[in-house]
């Protein structure tokens, strides 16, 4: 009941007219950002971080949460209607969604993804409501060694497990950690990598890196490589689901939520695995006529499941962010930056020291989900019009907003030059297939991890063995090693088995 009372208090804060307005503007802006190609939620939040200087903390967190959420809804609209593979989160939705749209069922695909997002988002918010306080209670008991190992786990999964190549992921992660080193050391106050520049003493701002890597790089990439790409758009149809569509969507939404929620809860990050897993499950479970639609005319389960899994993961990812202070995606990393701008460090104490803020934020998630359902079902036609904005104007316009974000922070022209340099780095990373999330997560989490590590070693009186002496920390060391070793071992084992089978087959041939 304690939780219920706290949640009600949160609702009381969240439904004040001003906060409702922030939520609505955030959701609308988020949907627009999700629909428009070229900018995602991480950039949108990053570009608007300067408002943290003036807007009160609860209002701005509600606003940012709306953007975070809205972008997920909007992203699926684009991936269903445009025939270009978008960001990873909506890539799976695009596979079946595109096929449905091509066979004249765009409306049903849009409806099932919006309602599925609502169902999954709401269920996952209930999970956040019920479990976040428990996790926070537990997390209070963690010391620096455990925290450090949790962060190492986040680093490992973000860089070495997700993505195509562990090597490129690691390179990106350490590039992010290196960027995080710039500025004054938190513990000793020593200046690092400032090259005598006063501007660098405060460190490189997360806004610069996020906006540079995503927005500016996207524009530069479009100018250099994508000028001649032609996009085709599918025709809209009435947003409507038949009784059969409902019957097929319901179980898929619930299964997707069930798959997505646990993936969000663990500090590992990434929506790729849960969405693909949900897609594979739906495909396997479909029978007869329904299964024949997969990959041909488009199966509605293939949109409903992954879309629900995506939203459930994204929502549940707020648990590690709020209770442990560990971001596992670009957007949550930037959200952590927003908290830091207010001098708040998310972690177990957040639920006691800033209880009003946390509960208002959670309440606003429920409200935001309802708002987004309304914004995305009856009003979807309005958002689709955004896809008609011509690319040159859209991309050039993004640069104006990028300037606001980068310059609004501390009015330094130096930052704008740095923004350009980071943008060029982003183009290289995209071209050579380096993932960007490890850079952002490494940069924002690096200084925190370093502080925990140094505190932990100090706790062990200078000995690194401390990480192995405490049961929780030891368990985390084992998990990190398992995450690194098991998938590779399985791959080697499978390859060897195949080689042996082939060898066996060949020698049998020789005898004959």
């Amino acid at each position, binding site marked *: 009941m304690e939780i219920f009372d706290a949640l009600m208090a949160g609702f009381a804060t969240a439904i004040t007219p001003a906060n409702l307005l922030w939520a609505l503007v955030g959701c609308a802006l988020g949907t627009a950002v999700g629909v428009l190609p070229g900018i995602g939620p991480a950039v949108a939040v990053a570009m608007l971080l*300067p408002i943290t200087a*003036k*807007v009160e903390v609860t209002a701005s967190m509600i606003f940012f949460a709306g953007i975070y959420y809205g972008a997920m809804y909007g992203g699926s609209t684009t991936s269903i209607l445009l025939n270009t*593979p978008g960001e990873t989160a909506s*890539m799976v939705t695009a596979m079946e969604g595109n096929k449905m749209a091509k066979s004249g069922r765009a409306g049903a695909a849009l409806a099932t993804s919006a309602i599925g997002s609502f169902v999954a988002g709401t269920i996952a918010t209930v999970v956040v409501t019920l479990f976040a306080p428990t996790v926070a209670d537990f997390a209070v008991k963690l010391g620096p060694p455990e925290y450090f190992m949790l962060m190492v786990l986040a680093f490992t999964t973000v860089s070495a497990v997700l993505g*195509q*190549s562990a*090597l490129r992921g*690691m*390179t990106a992660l*350490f590039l992010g*950690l*290196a960027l995080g*080193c710039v500025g004054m050391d938190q*513990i*000793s106050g*020593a200046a*690092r*990598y400032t090259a005598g520049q006063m501007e660098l003493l405060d460190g490189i701002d997360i806004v610069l890196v996020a906006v540079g890597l995503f927005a500016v790089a996207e524009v*530069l990439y*479009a*100018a*250099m*490589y*994508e*000028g*001649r*790409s032609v996009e085709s758009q599918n025709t809209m149809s009435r947003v409507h689901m038949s009784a059969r569509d409902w019957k097929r969507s319901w179980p898929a939404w619930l299964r997707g939520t069930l798959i997505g929620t646990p993936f969000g809860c663990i500090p590992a990050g990434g929506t790729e695995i849960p969405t*693909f*897993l949900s*897609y594979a499950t739906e*495909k396997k479970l479909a029978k007869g006529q329904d299964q024949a639609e997969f990959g041909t005319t488009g199966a509605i389960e293939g949109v409903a499941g992954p879309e629900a899994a995506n939203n459930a993961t994204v929502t549940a990812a707020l648990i590690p962010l709020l209770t442990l202070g560990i971001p596992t995606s670009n957007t949550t990393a930037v959200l952590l930056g927003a908290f830091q701008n207010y001098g708040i460090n998310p972690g177990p104490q957040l639920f006691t020291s800033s209880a009003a803020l946390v509960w208002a934020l959670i309440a606003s998630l429920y409200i935001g989900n309802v708002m987004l359902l309304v914004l995305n079902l009856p009003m979807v036609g309005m958002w689709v019009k955004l896809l008609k904005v011509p*690319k*040159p104007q859209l991309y*050039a*316009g993004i*640069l*104006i907003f990028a*300037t*606001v974000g980068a*310059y*609004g922070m501390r*009015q330094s*022209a130096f930052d*704008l030059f740095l*923004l*350009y340099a980071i943008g060029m780095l982003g183009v290289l990373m*995209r*071209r*050579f*297939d380096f993932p960007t999330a490890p850079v952002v997560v490494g940069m924002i989490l*690096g200084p925190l991890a*370093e502080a925990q*590590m*140094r*505190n932990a*070693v*100090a706790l062990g009186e*200078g*000995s690194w063995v401390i990480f192995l002496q405490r049961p929780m920390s030891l368990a985390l060391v084992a998990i990190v090693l398992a995450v690194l070793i098991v998938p590779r071992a399985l791959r080697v084992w499978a390859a060897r088995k195949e080689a042996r089978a082939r060898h066996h087959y060949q020698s049998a041939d020789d005898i004959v």
Partner: protein
Amino acid sequence: MSDSSLPATAAADEAPDCVPSPRAQTAVGIGVLLVAAGMAAGALQISSDAGYGGVGPNFLPWLCAVVLALCGAWLVWEARTGGFRQASDPGGQPKADIGPLVWVSAGLLVNASLIGTVGFIVSCTLCYVLAVQGLRRASRQPQAGSARTWAQDVATGLLISAPVFWAFTQFLAINLPGLTETGWL
């Protein structure tokens, strides 16, 4: 989950292969090695004073330098032995268009150099106009560069940057530089 359950990304076969050449990949690997060298050079100047703990402020910089050096060397090795492993196609066209890059870069750099003196609205409009002209050229628009597109782009640039400026200075009270002190221009 087997790979066969996932259809290949649409249109992957007809698009030209855009994975960069091994030579370019080698250059990237060498770039990472150079960053590592830079990190190491910087780390030499950071105090190693560990205080009560066993770890000083120069530990993480050295760790980054060493790991980046290893990654750089490995990247070079991969590039020299058949190219980066599992490199996915970045999309777009195989060769970079340099012209549009120059236009967009000019927009961004002009913005960075002028924003303090001519104010947000003028500077951002300039940036917008240069960038949009570059992007028009990138997409081979025949009318790019005509007087009409220039006029159109200047108007659009003003229509975006002026309301953004007002929203931030008047409504959110965030300081952005103006040409005048009025907060309106």
